């Protein structure tokens, strides 16, 4: 631009001029925020609506006993979904190129098998716990290496690792049930105070711990920065790959922990851990609709976990075929992902 004339003298007063006040007040991009609010409020309304409907249709539904049961039954999926949430936060919420860990369910299966096998082989709970957590951590490390060192997108890297892990589980268990019974395991699966399962308390405690770290510490904030806008994180002096590695290690650890819970819940390791994948992915993706900024949060993931579990529980109480559950979950993924994707696209315009 080669304008020879000078601009009108700029002055800081300009910031307070009425004209600027009008354009300066952050006008939330209307389409986006309205739709975002609608999505969030709508999801909460659907959640509450479902609860209300079930409690009328099946009076037992809202009893303390049933709620406790649902919480207990959600523990394994909840822990896995929290691990996945951490990965999605650190990798960004783009469904294709962002953070995802498809190996989580298989990880849980293998960790459980390791635990049960160690108990079978006569080792104590301490070593079995270490074995399960170590297995999870190792799987997380393989994922992290494939993604940060080899540069494979998480979707493909963890898909490959999922298959490897599922294969290892078959090798270890010969595709059979490995029973395991110890005092520790029975204590974990017993009923606690108020007749609510111990697993329910485990889920709540684990959620509180994860939420504390992710939502309330600088580490958590940085994790979001890394996922949402890696360049900005880099410009702020953060080592992006280190955070991504950390997120996959954390998610691997969640897989190992969920493995321990599942051994306790099922009194051993069973096949078919892979079936957990769909509900866990639904839960972690659904969770973001419960947050103001439409981001994945630990609290949102807990709500989503409970929503999915209550839905399944309600179906059972109403004697609706459980074969429908999987379809409903798939439908939820479609709805949530298309809603958030559309909103993101709008936001980028």
């Amino acid at each position, binding site marked *: *631009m*080669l*304008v*020879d*004339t*000078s*601009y*009108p*003298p*700029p*002055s*800081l007063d*300009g*910031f*307070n001029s009425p004209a*600027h006040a009008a*354009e*300066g*007040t*952050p*006008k*939330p*991009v209307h389409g986006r*925020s309205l739709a975002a609010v609608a999505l969030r409020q709508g999801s909460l309304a659907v959640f509450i609506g479902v609860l209300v409907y079930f409690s009328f249709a099946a009076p037992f539904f809202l009893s303390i006993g049933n709620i406790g049961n649902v919480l207990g039954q959600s523990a394994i999926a909840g822990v896995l979904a929290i691990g996945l949430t951490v990965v999605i936060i650190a990798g960004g919420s783009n469904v294709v190129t962002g953070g995802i860990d498809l190996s989580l369910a298989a990880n849980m299966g293998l960790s459980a098998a390791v635990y049960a096998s160690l108990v079978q082989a006569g080792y104590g709970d301490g070593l079995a716990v270490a074995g399960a957590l170590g297995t999870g951590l190792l799987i997380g490390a393989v994922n992290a290496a494939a993604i940060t060192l080899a540069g494979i997108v998480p979707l493909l890297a963890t898909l490959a690792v999922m298959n490897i892990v599922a294969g290892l589980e078959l090798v270890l268990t010969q595709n059979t049930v490995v029973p395991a019974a110890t005092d520790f395991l029975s204590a974990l699966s017993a009923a606690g105070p108020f007749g609510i399962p111990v697993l329910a308390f485990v889920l709540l405690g684990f959620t509180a711990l994860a939420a*504390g770290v992710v939502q*309330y*510490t*600088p580490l*958590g*904030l*940085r994790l*979001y*920065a890394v996922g*949402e*806008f890696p*360049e*900005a*994180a880099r*410009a*702020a*002096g*953060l080592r992006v790959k280190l955070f991504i590695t950390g997120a996959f290690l954390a998610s691997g650890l969640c897989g190992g922990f969920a493995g321990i819970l599942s051994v306790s819940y099922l009194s051993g390791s069973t096949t078919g851990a892979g079936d957990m994948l769909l509900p866990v992915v639904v839960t972690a993706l659904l969770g973001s609709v419960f947050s103001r*900024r439409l*981001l994945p949060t630990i609290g949102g993931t807990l709500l989503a976990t409970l929503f999915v579990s209550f839905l399944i529980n309600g179906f059972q109480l109403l004697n609706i075929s459980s074969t429908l559950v999987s379809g409903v979950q798939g439908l939820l993924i479609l709805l949530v992902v298309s809603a958030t994707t559309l909103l993101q696209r709008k*936001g980028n315009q």
Partner: protein
Amino acid sequence: MAAPVNVDQEDEIVRLSGIVKRFGGAQALSGASLAVKRGTVHGLVGQNGAGKSTLIKLLAGLHQADEGQIEIDGIAYGALTPPQVEHLGIHFIHQDRLLVPTFTVGEALFLGREPRIAGTPFLDRKLMRQKSAEILDRYFGLRLPNSALIGDLTAAEKQIVQITRALLDGPKVLVFDEPTAALVRREAELLFGLIRRLRDEGITIHYISHYLSEIVDLCDTVTVLRNGRDVATLPVVGTSAKDIGTLMVNRDIAELYPKPQVSLGEPLLQLDRLALADRYADVSLTLHKGEVLGLTGLLGSGAKELVRTLFGLESPTAGTVTIHGETVLCPNPAAATAKRLALVPEDRRRDGVALDLSVTENITLASLDRFSRAGLLDRAVEKRQASALIERLQIKTDSADALVRTLSGGNQQKVAIAKWLSRQSEIYLLDEPSVGVDIAAKVEIYTLIGELAERGAGVIVLSSDIEELLGITDRVLVFFRGKISRDFISAETRPEQILAEVTGANETLRHAG
């Protein structure tokens, strides 16, 4: 032209001398020097390829020099790393605002150095909120709601947040790399006020820009780079944008606006009292064959919306559009294209070209039906047509099959125009056709616009570069608050007359004159 400045050595906060940098076989810098005096606004200009960005990346520690020396505060450094540069008090305000869109202002400001609640590992969000509100208000008089997310802010506000981030570290030098690229003029003016204030507070500013008028307006001293060397360092007082421009190119600035004399033909496009809701009203104009018509106005003045309407992106709420004497309706771009209208949009990288398709594919994209036989593309014909246009427009590309992404900005723009040439469009709507390209490419684009007119097309150029508009058009229409406020004959108009009209006439004329 003023004599080179003799800078007192002790007063130099940044000094790069005899810098040589090669990338493979290409010599990016061949002995460039730069000395920035403490407490001044120092401009750096040069065409694309002159070595500006290489020099800045060296200073940022992102590249290492092959030869030469970098001194900061009188201490020589062999190789710098980015953290080291930051530690020395040199901060960079990048062209793209590196802030997380889903963060609150407080979170974005404190990312990487978050305050904690004393004695806990937890974030002190309250403190972050209070401190960021206080700093933004004190420095910039900017008040934002606590809940405001970065993504909700205007480009200018984001830039303020980014400058504030740098200020939190108590910088000695702030380097602005093309900071106004995404700002409208008004926002840019606010930024200039801010930069002057920072300088008055003792911060040294290094300012890199394509816009010479900004340099003249803002800087105390300017260094001109050409072909990897510094060709001059001048005080800005007593130097005009033309002087600087002449130093940047090896050609006289008078040749910048080649405008062929074209006699106007029959009316091509006529608008009669066209209106669009609350955007503009009562717009009547006639575009003749061979005419280049300029439109300008502030953001929201209606000029841009008019162009969008003509191309079928908006539906007018009143009035008529006549093309070749026939009243037409263009409810969508496809209909507009069928009426042989062409739009070259402002954001060419997003809307104008497909970056990951080849030059040939881009050129033939809008007219594939002309290259198809029985539903299949005739690659040979496609190729011939593309090669002809590449040659005619002098598009600089390795081959016709090179991806458009690999081309320079000016050449991408030529591809965007070539796309419509191959469709034999008659009415060209060009939205900021020369934004973000270097001077040489600008001249080529201007020449191309002249050629379009000579071939009997009608061209409407929407631009905020007033001198450019006067240089390349026959008439300029100024939009102000949704109306055509005045109609100028380009050859008889001075830029300041248009500027006065654009900014709302007389009360601003006082400052501008």
